[in-house]
């Protein structure tokens, strides 16, 4: 199910906001070039809130132990392994829509 969740302007550039859902928190990121990505708000390492991390390029650094997560794939960059589940989003006229995930899905895998 696709759902309007807000506008691009409501998220700071190189920042993130959270969408609270019954399946868990989803972090919605905005890059320097205004691209929008969404991931379950759990780092595959120790479950840190990715929405609280520093966004750079198309990645976010987890605030807990500085693992870097690729916003496009959800994969951990560099020497570590793991993956955060991505959530499909689309932007049209500044309005962000998100495909709400299946409630039973878990935040991380891999």
């Amino acid at each position, binding site marked *: 199910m696709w*759902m309007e*969740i*807000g506008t691009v302007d*409501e*998220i*700071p*550039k*190189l*920042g993130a*906001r*959270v*969408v*609270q*859902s*019954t399946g868990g*928190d989803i972090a*919605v990121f905005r890059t*320097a*070039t205004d691209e929008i990505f969404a991931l379950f708000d759990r780092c595959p390492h*120790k479950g*840190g*809130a990715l929405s*609280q*991390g*520093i*966004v*750079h*390029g198309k990645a976010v*650094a987890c*605030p*807990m132990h*500085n693992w*870097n997560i690729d916003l496009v794939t959800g994969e951990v960059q560099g020497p570590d392994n793991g993956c955060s589940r991505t959530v499909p989003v689309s932007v049209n006229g500044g309005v962000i829509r998100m495909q*709400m995930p299946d409630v039973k899905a878990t935040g991380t895998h891999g």
Partner: protein
Amino acid sequence: MKQKLIIIGNGMAGMRTVEEILSRDADAYDITVFGTEPRENYNRIMLSPVLSGEKKFEDIIINTREWYAENGITLHAGDAVTAINADAKTVTAESGLTLSYDKLLLATGSDPFIIPVPGVNLPGVVTFRDLDDVNRMLEAAKFGGSAVVIGGGLLGLEAAVGLKANGMEVTVVHLMDTLMERQLDEAAGYLLASELEGRGLTVLTGANTQSILGDGKVGGLQLSDGTTIAADLVVMAVGIKPNVALAKDIGLDVGRGVVVNDLMQTSNPDIFAVGECVEHRGSTYGLVAPLYEMGRVLAGHLTGQDDVVYQGSVTSTKLKVTGVDVFSAGDFSGGEGTEDIVFRDASRGVYKRIVIRDDKIDGAVLYGDAKDGAWYFQLMKNGADITELRDTIVFGQAYAGGTHVDPSAAVAALADDAEICGCNGVSKSDIVNAITENGLTSLEGVKAHTKASASCGGCSGLVEQLLAVTLGDAYEVQTVKPMCGCTQHSHDDVRRLIMAKSMTSIPEVMQELEWTTPDGCSSCRPALNYYLLCAWPETYTDDNQSRFINERVHANIQKDGTFSVVPRMWGGMTSANELRAIADVVDKFAIPAVKVTGGQRLDLFGVQKKALPAVWADLNAAGMVSGHAYGKSLRTVKTCAGEQWCRFGTQDAIEMGIKLEKMTWGSWTPHKFKMAVSGCPRNCAEATIKDFGVVAVDSGYELHVGGNGGIEVRVTDYLCTVHSDAEVLEYAGAYMQLYREEARYLERTAPWVARVGLAHIKAHIVEDGEKCKALYERFLLSQTALQEDPWADRASGVKDAHEFSPLKIVA
């Protein structure tokens, strides 16, 4: 009674002579120095890096005012000598001061040569000789615009590159067809011109300046072929002429310079001369090595300790432009009886030419790869027969014996008397002996003990290789470590360039310094944000998205995603009112845990992020502000009971701690910063493992710096003892500011103090009242902009409201 020695000239030649005299016989003379410039003695060769922003003036001071005082030397800086009376043996200065001498030393240096064209007196025409000139250029460069440098020699090119680094459009106008024609041949000059053009400079050779244009101030330049070039600044760097005015006035023999014999004695037996003002055996010199040789000879003679004579110097040249490797020595004009060995590698931009006469090196020009310069120079000075080396000589020393290309092999193979530092005449054996006798392990150590690499710095690489050869595996080559994967620049370079180029935002730094990533990473962005904030406290707009979450939302994130909140308790003091308010907040927001921290305050654990503004509002209402327990900033000032309560207390530790905390709270630092004040030497506040510790004694306060109680415990170093509360505040502020300005991001004071050395800290805080005061003032200025409670405007919802609410709640 001691003989009176007066030195006219506080420059490199005169003061080196004084140093040489002191090292031979410190009691030989009663020494007085007159200098035209109103400042201490500095390394004039290094003005180019000061102009380009790679160094600061303090970095190039050779002898501080304290040094003069300690050695009993009277310095009249900014008071030029205007007349000598050789019969009465007196000198008279501008101020009217007249002093008598037994021996007089002329070290008046040289003046820039001004070409006599119309318009030379217009404002905006400058020379490149002293610090005032550099300041004038930097002032002009602030407004951008364009500059013309007349003269494509060493000095002119260094000025041109420096101005370009300051953001000006620069054209070099050179009369001859080849840049640096006295040091380079045509081929190397061409490579140099292409390199400079590649860096965005315009180079015009064979260009004769006809007049400087402008109405009331410089507007441009006209060449003899009619070309005009617009310019807001014209730098005249066409050469120097010995300053012989005083010598002429009293009838000394003067040619191009003041004529001296092999003992540096002028035609008046009690008057001597050294440096650029001198003419010796028909030659004058403008490089530093010959000046230092003259100083050694004269000092030996004046102290009667040795009777060496000066026989003239063979010189070599290096251009001090970062990234341009140029070396030349001897005669490379070629001609009859000489043979050339030439090596070219166009793709690497390398050119080497060795000129040989009668199987000996007559001259050498190296461009693009000058590391073998010292070797060729030594072979040339020794007049060595190179017949056997001839086939491979152009490939450099490493190949000369047919051995492997090990960069240090060349240095290992050098003879003991081979000169490594041309500026200061330091040989290989001098350096190796200094390393082994003093257990030196760093370039800085060698510099301090031998002066090698202390002048132009061109031989630093060779000195490092000597360290490697001498110490073997014990020596780790200290390469510059980049800040992070996004850049080649080190932390220190980035900070220096931020100041030099007046860069004011993170995107500007990344653009100008060619970051390899579009917007950095979680390592460099917080560092850049801090460096910019520290550089421009009054105008910089803090970039919240470049701050770590704790600093972004002014609370500490915990492993479960909740936050902890620590209100400030000044000097560890609290009250019933504050405790009641805290207890109410704990109840109201169902905060699960309250803990007393190691820094004498209370930590409220398990606060939901969305509740933070409301928690802060209640704490604010009771008069409490953020404790910055989450920041790379001033944390706590821990105190003991002090003399108010404790029977052992000697000073009021609590009151002192509160004053310190009130002054320093809110300041951002490279890493967290903790203080403590103990009321007596029993030191119950554990001040000697803090970043800045104060221990009260009967007579005042002992100040301690650089302690740490973390992973690697480090006890503080004792800085000094002061007597008043005001001094504690001044020294604390100055020390914090020095740390703020010099330490690398995420470097605690403990490793910083260990790295730069206590002597460095003392030199800024204790030994130089003016520096200390200036640091303190910069700290206070920064505080006027930074000292605000970050909780207040967030509690009221004015700031960063998006941080504390979800974008959407989907049921």
